[in-house]
């Protein structure tokens, strides 16, 4: 029983550590060592893996839904014309 409790606590520590690094991991801001640690843990822990997948999905959805604005083509012309004015005017 004591052994069980101990193991359980240890697992929880690992999860906590993993979840704390998850954001840095997804942003590619971890050290190589931390990166491997997170990778190894999420391969072996269902809970943290599902957290990782949700965060990853969120990041991708933000990118998909938030990068669809294209500059109207006349703006490029405007900028180029104004620069010509600055140079020659």
């Amino acid at each position, binding site marked *: 029983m004591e052994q069980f409790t101990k193991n359980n606590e240890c697992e929880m520590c690992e999860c906590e550590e993993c979840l704390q690094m998850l954001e*840095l991991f997804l942003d590619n801001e971890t050290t190589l060592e931390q990166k491997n640690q997170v990778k190894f843990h999420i391969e072996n822990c269902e809970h943290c893996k599902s957290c990782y997948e949700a965060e990853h999905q*969120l990041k991708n959805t*933000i*990118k998909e839904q938030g990068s669809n*604005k294209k*500059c109207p083509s006349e*703006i490029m012309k405007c900028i180029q014309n104004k620069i010509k004015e600055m140079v020659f005017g």
Partner: protein
Amino acid sequence: MENLEELIVEETPAVIINDAEKEALFAKLFLPLLDAAYNFAFRLTLNESDAQDLVQDTFLKAYRFCNSFQIGTNAKAWLFRILKNSFINEYRRKQKNPSTVDYQEIEQFYNSDEADVKMTTDLRVEVLQDMIGDEVANALNSLDIDFRTVIILCDIEGFTYEEMSKILDIPIGTVRSRLHRARNVLKEKLKNYAKKYYG
């Protein structure tokens, strides 16, 4: 304007280039960034016409101060810093605050230190996969401007924390904690949304 002068003092050029060289440099380094800059301008102003003005102002400033750009450094980060400063100086004051009252409490909570320790992770991947419309973009648009900005720079534009720290003139630690808080508020909004529409 202050901010631009600061930028110039900081990055005084070694070479003086003529107009032709300046135009070539500008066309090569900055014009290809027009769509990305426009997207950033739109996400900040949430308005097509303001975004068009802001992006034009930004590019004209970039052209005028091209000499102070150090070749070999990150052109996109340099341009985005000008855009962000122009937005703060000229556009932000006429914007109405888009963050709605019902989320104020949440933002206050996440601005307190206790919130830093935990991580909200109970947003499920299935729920996010159902959000195929503009739900996430709308939630993003409703965030406080400082929160919105870090998410745009990180998740949409892919800047590193160090680049963001230079664009926003804040320490890397602040980038990290602001991003964390911003994401927690965003997740909270999405969870409420999911509860409302998917039960």
